[in-house]
């Protein structure tokens, strides 16, 4: 939901170098059915936390929908899921 400016700020503060996309109108958040209506500050709509691992064919190979907003996907689990995907020859 953050604008590219806010995300840019976060990236430079946190040292993130991966592609960081903004969805200020929650279009993709809605398409992925992740909109948390009134879940943000002052009852604004935000995204619920969720993680998807998508393989080269565009197929979802691993997902994580947390049951508690404080608990997020573990880096170890995400790495293991990524390693389980066979490398496609190209």
């Amino acid at each position, binding site marked *: 939901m953050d604008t590219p400016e806010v995300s840019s700020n976060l990236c430079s503060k946190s040292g993130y170098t991966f592609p960081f996309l903004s969805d200020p109108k929650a279009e*993709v958040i809605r398409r992925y*059915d992740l909109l*948390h209506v009134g879940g943000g500050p002052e009852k604004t709509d935000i995204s619920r936390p969720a*993680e998807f691992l998508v393989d080269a064919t565009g*197929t979802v190979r691993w997902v994580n929908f947390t049951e508690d907003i404080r*608990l997020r996907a573990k880096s170890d689990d995400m790495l293991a899921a990524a390693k389980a995907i066979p490398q496609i020859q190209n």
Partner: protein
Amino acid sequence: MNQPIPAMGAMYQRRRNRALFDGSVVMVLAILSNFPVLYALNFPGQGLLPWISLALPAISVVFFIVALKRAFGQPEMYRGKILGSILGVLSVLLFAGSILLFQHLKDLPKSAAAPQVGQKAPDFTLNDTGGKPVSLSQLLATPIDTTSGKAPKAVLLVFYRGYW
């Protein structure tokens, strides 16, 4: 044969109400268990933290019930009527607050229509931090490792609540 007579003060000295101390320690631990840093760290059993934050206040309430039973039931033996009452009320408030917080943090949309394992992830295009449009299909096809020139095995999509 000269038995010392215990002083009156010592004879009627009341015992420390140990449950008051235990309940207070558990109450402090309950508050600490909510610290965000615990969720930023990576350790086994982290998934139990929300339950621990709910259970600890309940345990502290039990300790204060014991403490108050002693203080009011055997006042000749135990101290802590006033302190126990104050801490007891605080622990009940903390427990009530913990229940509300527990429910609030788990109050998430069902996301029943979200892509599941085996399904195609819907393609999309969004702007990156530089304002440049980037699509999922583009990310899946763009080599990260420029030396091998190979497209990535996969892309990890992380949706978060905005800034956190």
